[in-house]
């Protein structure tokens, strides 16, 4: 199976191969069409593009650095490891790229009110930040369990005058927050833009989020060519819904020599059932508007998931990742909670960079991978966010109260 030219997907039905589509209640169909039309117009509108580029530069701090992690490389004793420093973007993660893009679109469409879901709180913070700057009302849905374990980000959102609504259903994590955000959107669709934070949901969201996040790979590709005069051998990124990964991968999809590796949350191990490794252990199904791999039981009920990182604790995944997996263009692996903690400490200790728990999964895998490769090879790791928010979780895992 060959991978269609990246730019050609999704097709006009919102499909990446068989994956994607628009599986939503009828009430939302026209809004999805409106959003797609607004986006297709905006992305060729010089004024819109210039405004977004200006904000990405002056407000979000782009381009983010590409850093040669010399100490980590020496520690692993193999391929050279580069970090794409999305942790240095404003608000501390890649989420700001998409939040800015979609908020400008919402403004363009005249939507007064913005809603979002959040898991780790990074997308909620990014959305609340952009709404504060643009003067929009902002409501963020967050699972009650995530509110507990990401308290710092909850307070940040409230400082930014966003309304944070706790969701008590199900496992009280990201999936349940998305259900509730969709219910809000169904009810208030005419005044409200739903600013989805990952490359999931009905068409056109997976395309929209990918395009706004593809700045990561576009910059990284130019930066690595500048630094090394060649492309990397691997691009490694963590995958929950998959927005930083698709953003990092997209520009490289056509470069056949570049291996793309997505790292999922293996939690307590794939055999334990306590994980969020959708592409490693799921099968295709429909959740939150699109057909994609899904963690589900034999009756099609969506499984409860687990991960130490709230941002990866999700039973679905973006449809383009499902496509890349089945087309064998990208490979997806799982890293456990314990291994992610090792990655967290390893990068903190060797490079003085405290990563978020989400990309700590990718750090662990990239370190393992680099150790098996010769020194002339290059591993490019997307460091999607910084770890301040996770310090209490990491301390608790070590039995320390902070």
């Amino acid at each position, binding site marked *: 199976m060959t991978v269609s030219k990246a730019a050609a997907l999704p097709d006009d039905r919102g499909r990446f191969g068989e994956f994607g*589509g628009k*599986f939503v*209640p*009828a009430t939302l*169909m026209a809004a999805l069409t409106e959003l797609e039309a607004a986006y297709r117009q905006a992305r060729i509108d010089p004024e819109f593009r210039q405004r977004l580029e200006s904000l990405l530069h002056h407000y979000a701090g782009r381009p983010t650095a590409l850093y040669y992690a010399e100490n980590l490389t020496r520690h692993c004793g193999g391929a050279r490891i580069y970090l794409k420093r999305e942790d240095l973007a404003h608000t501390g993660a890649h989420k700001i790229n998409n939040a800015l893009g979609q908020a400008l679109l919402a403004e363009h469409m005249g939507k007064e009110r913005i809603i979002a879901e959040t898991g780790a709180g990074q997308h909620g913070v990014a959305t609340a930040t952009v709404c504060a700057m643009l003067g929009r009302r902002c409501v963020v849905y967050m699972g009650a369990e995530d509110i507990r374990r990401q308290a710092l980000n909850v307070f940040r959102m409230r400082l930014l005058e966003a309304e944070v609504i706790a969701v008590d259903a199900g496992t009280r994590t990201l999936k349940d927050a998305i259900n509730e955000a969709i219910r809000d959107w169904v009810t208030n669709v005419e005044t409200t833009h739903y600013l989805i934070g990952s490359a999931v949901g009905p068409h056109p969201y997976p395309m929209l989020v990918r395009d706004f996040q593809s700045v990561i790979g576009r910059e990284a590709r130019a930066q690595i060519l500048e630094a090394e005069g060649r492309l990397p051998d691997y691009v490694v990124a963590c995958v929950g819904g998959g927005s930083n990964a698709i953003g990092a991968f997209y520009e490289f999809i056509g470069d056949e020599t570049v291996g793309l590796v997505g790292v999922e949350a293996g939690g307590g191990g794939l055999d334990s059932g306590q994980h969020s490794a959708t592409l490693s252990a799921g099968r295709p199904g*429909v959740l939150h508007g699109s057909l994609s791999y899904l963690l589900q039981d034999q*009756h*099609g009920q969506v499984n409860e998931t687990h991960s130490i990182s709230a941002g990866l604790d999700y039973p679905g995944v973006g449809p383009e990742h499902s496509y890349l997996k089945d087309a064998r263009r990208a490979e997806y692996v799982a890293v456990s909670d314990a291994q992610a903690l090792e990655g967290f400490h390893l990068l903190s200790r060797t490079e003085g960079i405290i990563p978020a728990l989400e990309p700590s999964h990718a750090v662990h895998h990239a370190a393992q991978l680099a150790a098996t490769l010769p020194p002339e090879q290059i591993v490019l790791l997307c460091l999607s966010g910084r770890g301040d928010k996770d310090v209490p979780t990491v301390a608790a895992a070590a039995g320390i109260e902070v």
Partner: protein
Amino acid sequence: MSKDRIKEKFNAIRQEGRPGLIVYLTTGCPDLEATLELIPALAAAGADAIELSIPFSDPLADGPVIQESTFHALAQGVTPDDCLDLVAQVRGEVPDTPLILMTYYNPILSYGLERFAQRVAECGVDGIIPVDVPGEEAEPLFNQCAPRNVHLVPLLAPTSNEDNIRAAVALSSGFIYCVSLTGTTGAQNQLSQRGLEWLNRVSAHTALPLAVGFGISRREHVETVGRYAQAAAVGTALIRTVLDSPRDQVVAQASKLVAELAGQPWPASGGTL
């Protein structure tokens, strides 16, 4: 060819010159035995057709009441096969009442569309309302349902544009399910401010009867709907009653509500309480 209960029922409603009443039950709430008792009782109390859910873990088009009933059913382990078997079991008791499955897509996708449509037909289900499968995505399911004479009923909403209406109508048979409001399922005191004028946009595309659901909880709503459409669908108000009634009162209380909604005297003549 099996008889077309939906068509016959709507013809009868039209001849009687009254609004039809469709009621919704969450299968397995409070338990499967209760659902088995409720179906013939509600048909006797004045329900023209009955929607039965296949409980799904993530009911994102439903408000709090139907969510609660769904989680209650799932906690008891209700499966898609339980729902299908229940229809087969009760079919003979309500030979003329259309029984329609209202479901999210994933349980039936997981079952296998062909296998599901086959079982649906065997069990005597008359139609399927797929909540999160708009006309634009309904073709694979339609292709399995149509040859087996199972009606497919995609939903439409006040926000539906002409393209959405055309896509839904192209694959609909039996009737068209129109949502009265922009929102999740849930009882409202008043019908949508926007009114029901938009139903005329749907009628312009199809001769099929229209049913209107979401937010309907009183007899007066049913009568209002009757001015624009052929039937009203009631879910949340009925489920609220089912959830709030002591187990031994569930059937009686639900039947009483349905009789009120149908504008029938209660207790029904010859019925006992």
